[in-house]
């Protein structure tokens, strides 16, 4: 298995200071060189490791293949897998420092808890599950299945999502299932469905090696998927590099790379993405950059799209977006004149105004140029959370398993037959209930049992004060299963201790469709159980049966659950039938579809330009992008899409909340490279915690100056919904914009709640965000609210914001000595080793064209 050997004196690096590690530059069209990154806990020598257990990182959607180091029954470190197609051995700071530390934290939940008055008290499993089942049965009796809601995560394993989906859809029959995936990835899925007829990432990471231009739309990749960004840097720093175009209101590392490679940085005003996209689209039309033959053969809707974007001249766009008209022209020219463009899209589009329309517009650019399905020409709609993809596939987010269409009776019947239940049991009378609506039903008590798994909505959802009130109220019985007593778990009626990554086996799929198996490395602490076992215990206790009177859930182990899942994917775009645990125990993760036709998996979709839009096959008949109104089957059939992709456009409309005299600034939220979600895991790694220990807010030098604010001052940020008080970073946002990281709730590592930071109870970025969502994807708009910032008092040093990435201090500001930010550093030593020979990567298109690919 060991494809590499350690060279003498492998490079030791502080990967907090050096996020991406050393460069391994290479030329266009050649295989990305391998480099194995490794970190072991202080005091653990490599020779002392008892075993290395196969897995993949679970701290972002990149899904880097890794092995877990186990010593004395504990996880003590990680090593990237050189042979994995996703990361070629590399790991980023979160993966290195954050993968294992949380597991042995002394505040793990080890026993179930139940509420007694205003306290949660320890109990045994029988008592805890007994309370849930008692409430569940009473509600079913009294109100039926619509009284039940499930809110999951982007961090469970596919076996768990699928099992829960079957429980919810065939056992109970409730349409109220969604996950944190709604907040992070719903727009990606929705945009695919609108353009291509079904979910499914068209592109591949190998497109990076072959493209001439890279467009990053609202995607701060260095912060969100650091290893993928390292892969890009190895191209932009090598021979024949691509040009980078960055669409982001902050001057991120992507923006700097755009400037360095002769690309363009477009910084549209928050909430105006669609206006910019319409402008870029119009440029393709007016400059003759449209591949008319391809468009005629493989798309429908080009005439409507042309007239929709017609008014969006560069000057018009410049006025709305606050960008330079010539920059719009230059960016469009790069798109129009490159042979291969790879586009990536993330939260800057997904969590913003007109999210689906703007993301679909990225597809339109590619379709107009016929740039899809070949190496170097593709789209990567990214995901936020690591296993978000599986939630979408398996249907714990409300969709039907296997990208089936809830509006297509025969799709529903396929599932009902597979589960041996009546088709009427499976809820399919309306679109699935989205997260915000589930919480609204819980607010009124219309949902009387809400079961939350592995996520922390008390911190991560918009208008968090309202969410906490819903969870803490008596109108709804709340079950939480998690690793720790999170801000959400504190409000629950029953808390179930869950086993985490490395403590259970299961599979998950990264944003690139690559499926990994993660083996069980160690035992979970105390009485903690895997989420799969918890769901199975509930199903047993409820006595769910199928039409034959057999138990509804016919599986016990993760592997059996996987096989059951693979069976229902047969014939669907997301085909897992060729995958098994045995096959996934090989050297690399494998991208679906994997079936008889593609036994080794599929590097990119739509190579044949046939899209899953046929009326009988598609996952959706589509929506009106402006309202979310659904297209009917009859209307869809009349369009006869028959494998052609849809070009769909929409006019720009101003965001729901515009700046005013009282709230003159635009508020946007996001992430830092050192933390994942609400820091439940990453906050328990000292290296990561110290790199970004506390919240902050970023202002432009001009906006700070106008308000008498200096770096490190305590400021109050107010929106119509709430306020936070944190320290200010004079940073790289554009004038008029304010950025706050969303990771920080009141939980504080290694101390009592509200402990060591003065702002611990006043730093939750989502206090300010709005309850408003995209009409099609229903993803909340975390990135468009109006706010004001005022100085509260002087700070006593620089703000806690990291200096290494987008939160870096502004180069245009003269920092007084006492406030000068100190370079972020201090991560433990990690090693990086370049293998003697580049491993063989199945499906890598560079192997066809380059010598020495093997």
């Amino acid at each position, binding site marked *: 298995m060991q494809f590499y050997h350690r060279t003498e004196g492998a490079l030791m690096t502080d990967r907090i200071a050096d996020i991406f590690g050393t460069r391994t530059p290479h030329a266009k069209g050649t295989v990305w060189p391998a480099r194995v990154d490794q970190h072991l806990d202080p005091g653990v020598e490599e020779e002392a490791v008892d075993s290395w257990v196969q897995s993949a990182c679970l701290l972002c959607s990149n899904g880097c293949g890794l092995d877990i180091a186990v010593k004395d029954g504990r996880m003590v470190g990680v090593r990237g897998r050189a042979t994995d197609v996703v990361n070629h051995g590399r790991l980023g700071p979160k993966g290195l420092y954050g993968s294992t530390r949380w597991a042995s934290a002394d505040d793990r939940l080890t026993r179930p808890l139940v509420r007694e008055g205003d306290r949660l008290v320890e109990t045994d499993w029988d008592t805890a599950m007994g309370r849930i089942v008692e409430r569940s049965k009473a509600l079913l009796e009294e109100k039926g299945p619509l009284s039940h809601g499930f809110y999951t995560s982007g961090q469970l394993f596919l076996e768990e999502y699928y099992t829960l989906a079957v429980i919810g859809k065939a056992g109970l029959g409730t349409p109220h299932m969604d996950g944190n995936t709604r907040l992070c990835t719903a727009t990606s899925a929705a945009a695919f469905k609108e353009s291509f007829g079904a979910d499914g990432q068209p592109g591949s990471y190998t497109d990076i090696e072959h493209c001439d231009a890279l467009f990053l739309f609202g995607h701060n990749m260095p912060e969100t998927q650091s290893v993928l960004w390292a892969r890009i840097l190895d191209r932009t720093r090598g021979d024949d590099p691509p040009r980078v175009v960055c669409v982001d209101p902050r001057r991120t590392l992507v923006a700097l790379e755009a400037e360095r490679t002769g690309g363009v940085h477009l910084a549209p005003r928050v909430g105006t993405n669609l206006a910019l996209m319409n402008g870029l689209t119009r440029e393709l039309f007016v400059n003759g950059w449209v591949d008319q033959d391809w468009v005629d053969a493989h798309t429908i809707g080009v005439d409507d799209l042309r007239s929709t974007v017609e008014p969006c001249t560069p000057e018009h766009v410049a006025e709305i977006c606050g960008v330079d008209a010539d920059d719009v022209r230059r960016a469009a020219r790069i798109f129009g004149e490159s042979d291969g463009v790879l586009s990536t899209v993330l939260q800057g589009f997904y969590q913003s105004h007109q999210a689906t329309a703007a993301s679909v517009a990225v597809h339109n650019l590619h379709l107009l140029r016929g740039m899809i399905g070949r190496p170097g020409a593709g789209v990567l709609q990214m995901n936020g959370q690591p296993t978000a993809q599986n939630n979408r596939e398996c249907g714990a987010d409300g969709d039907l398993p296997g990208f089936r269409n809830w509006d297509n009776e025969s799709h529903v019947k396929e599932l009902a037959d597979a589960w041996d239940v009546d088709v009427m049991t499976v809820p399919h009378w309306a*679109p699935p209930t989205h997260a915000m609506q589930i919480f609204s039903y819980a607010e009124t*008590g219309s949902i009387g049992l809400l079961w939350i798994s592995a996520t922390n909505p008390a911190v991560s959802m918009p208008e968090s004060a309202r969410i906490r009130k819903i969870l803490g109220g008596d109108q709804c019985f709340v079950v939480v299963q998690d690793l720790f007593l999170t801000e959400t778990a504190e409000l629950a009626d029953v808390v179930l201790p869950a086993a985490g990554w490395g403590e259970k086996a299961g599979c998950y799929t990264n944003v690139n469709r690559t499926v990994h198996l993660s083996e069980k490395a160690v035992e979970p602490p105390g009485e903690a159980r895997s989420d799969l076992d918890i769901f199975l215990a509930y199903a047993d206790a409820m006595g769910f049966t199928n039409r034959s009177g057999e138990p509804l859930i016919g599986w016990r182990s993760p592997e059996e659950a996987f096989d059951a899942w693979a069976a229902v994917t047969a014939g669907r775009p997301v085909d897992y039938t060729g995958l098994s645990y045995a096959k996934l125990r090989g050297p690399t993760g494998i991208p679906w579809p994997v079936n008889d036709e593609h036994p080794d998996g599929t590097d990119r979709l739509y190579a044949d330009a046939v899209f899953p839009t046929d009326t009988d096959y598609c996952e959706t008949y589509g929506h009106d992008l402006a309202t*979310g*109104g659904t297209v009917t089957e009859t209307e869809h059939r009349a369009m006869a899409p028959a494998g052609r992709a849809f070009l769909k456009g929409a006019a720009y409309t101003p965001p729901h909340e515009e700046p005013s005299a009282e709230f003159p600034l635009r508020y946007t939220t996001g992430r830092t490279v050192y933390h994942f979600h609400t820091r439940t895991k990453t906050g328990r790694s000292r290296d990561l915690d110290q790199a970004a220990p506390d919240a902050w807010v970023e202002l432009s030098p001009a906006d700070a100056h106008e308000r008498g604010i200096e770096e490190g001052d305590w400021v109050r940020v107010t929106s119509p919904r709430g306020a936070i008080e944190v320290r200010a970073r004079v940073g790289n946002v554009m004038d008029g914009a304010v950025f706050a990281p969303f990771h920080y709730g009141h939980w504080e590592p290694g101390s009592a709640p509200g402990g060591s930071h003065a702002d611990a109870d006043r730093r939750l970025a989502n206090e300010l965000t709005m309850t408003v969502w995209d009409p099609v994807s229903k993803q909340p708009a975390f990135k468009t609210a109006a706010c004001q910032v005022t100085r509260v008092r002087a700070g006593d040093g620089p703000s806690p914001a990291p200096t290494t990435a987008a939160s870096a201090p502004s180069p245009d500001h003269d920092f007084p000595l006492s406030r000068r930010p100190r370079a972020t550093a201090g991560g433990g030593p990690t090693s990086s080793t370049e293998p003697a020979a580049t491993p063989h990567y199945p499906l890598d298109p560079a192997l066809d064209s380059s010598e020495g690919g093997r």
Partner: protein
Amino acid sequence: MPHLTTYLGLADHSEKTLAESLRAVADGHARVADVFHTCRMLADWSQANREALAPVVERYGEADVEEPERLHAAGLAGAREGEVGLLRDLQDLHVLATLVQTTWTVIAQGAQGLRDPELLEISQHAGAQTSRQLTWLTTRIKVAAPQALIVAP
């Protein structure tokens, strides 16, 4: 063309009623975020249809709506309460929008007969926008119905 002007008046009036009713429902259910924002956007569409029609009304002259008086649907004075109330309000909006849509159909037919391309385009575009309003209303009614009927408190 007394009847054409009557229908122009009817289109203007019923779009006005629809816009006002959409705003009343938006405000009455302001806590239901998608209803609030979508109804306001749809009200703007109705308003835009009226503005597009204004020059034609001027050209043909206005008529007091006499004969089709009984076609006038009353607008919603205010919104109802709760999940069932929302369902009923959306149904009322659907009835109003249907009246608007058939009115545009009638006008488009008249414009064909008159060979008035300007009016034809306006009425066809307006009718298409009304269809989109109706589609959203139907979608939203389907979403709201099961919970409102079976479990709402």
